[in-house]
């Protein structure tokens, strides 16, 4: 059962000379890599480039990977750093963040779904105003694949600090939403 093959087993295959392992690893983690990069840089094409570069970096360093660690934590850190470097280089304007395909995908046939799509747009914009650390932590937390300890490892902090930082990040995000929506927020809540 190839689907049950662990990341470590695939890495061992690669190190033993089986080149098909690269494809298996990429297929398994490409969506996560893209999602993390996309949430940080806010542009799909750039995020794909970042994800690909992160994979290349990971492939090149596979021989140095500590097999006792979790591959995803190690790999997401590479993606996070690559996205961070890209963002620093390009200084993307947060206002330029395109509307998420998630929001676009929502059918706009009713007033409610239109409103929801608008709200999704606002949340993407609000995320764009947070620091890359905060965005990564929120993204990883809501993807529900990583523990707080692993999320902390991705951004380079302890589990306790990650919990505090995540709480602050979510609060900041709520404040950004409040600023953007203004009085509309209260009507939405009531």
């Amino acid at each position, binding site marked *: 059962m190839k689907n049950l093959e662990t990341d470590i087993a695939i890495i061992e295959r690669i190190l033993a000379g089986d080149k098909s392992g*690269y*494809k298996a690893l*990429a*297929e398994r983690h*490409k*969506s*996560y890599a*893209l*999602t993390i990069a*996309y949430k940080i840089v806010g542009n*799909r094409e750039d*995020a*794909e480039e970042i*994800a*690909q570069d992160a*994979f*290349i970096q990971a*492939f*090149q360093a596979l021989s140095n990977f500590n097999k006792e660690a979790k591959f995803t934590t190690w790999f997401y850190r590479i993606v996070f750093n690559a996205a961070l470097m890209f963002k620093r280089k390009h200084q993307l304007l947060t206002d330029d963040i395109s509307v*998420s*395909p*998630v*929001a676009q995908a929502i059918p706009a046939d009713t007033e409610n779904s239109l409103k*929801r799509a608008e*709200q*999704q747009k606002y*949340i*993407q914009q609000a995320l764009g105003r947070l620091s890359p650390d905060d965005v990564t932590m*929120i*993204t990883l937390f*809501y*993807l529900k694949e990583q523990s707080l300890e692993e999320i902390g490892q991705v951004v380079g902090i302890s589990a306790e600090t990650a919990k505090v930082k995540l*709480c602050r990040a*979510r*609060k900041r*995000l*709520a404040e950004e*939403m*409040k600023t953007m929506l203004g009085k509309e*927020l209260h009507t*939405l*809540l009531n």
Partner: protein
Amino acid sequence: MKEELIFDILDGIASEEAIRLHEQYLANDEAYRLLFQELSFTHDLLEESTILEKTAVNFTDKLLDKWELAQQPATQLKPTLSQRLHIYFLWSMLVLLVLCLACMGITSSSGTAVIKVNMPALNTDIFQNKTVADSLLLLNTLLVLFFIDKKWLRPYFGQKLSTHERTTH
């Protein structure tokens, strides 16, 4: 911290005591109720919007092509004609300059120059000097040797050396 309590409630990890406290706050504290509504609104939106993005269809193929390229040893390509163009241009300009100067020297010495140029005629007497002539000759010889070394000797011995290394291993 009230925010931490709210997030624990939203994440479903609050203890029974925390839940009781939360319900108490909700019933008696208007500011807490509003804060809870705001945070849960954002939380719900994040729950809905944080889903995995889908990569382009050719993502893996592109990645594997990139990886193949990255694995290839860096080969120094021979410069193309367009890359060498500036060198050719500089050399031709230098040759033209030398020719012009030489021509001016000849015309001025024969006394038939028609165009008046405010440049001193090239003093060819300098080439009569033995030391200068020897130096020029030496320079030319060095240039020829450098050219022969680069064009034939180095590639020849480089090839010999690599063949020798392959046979000894």
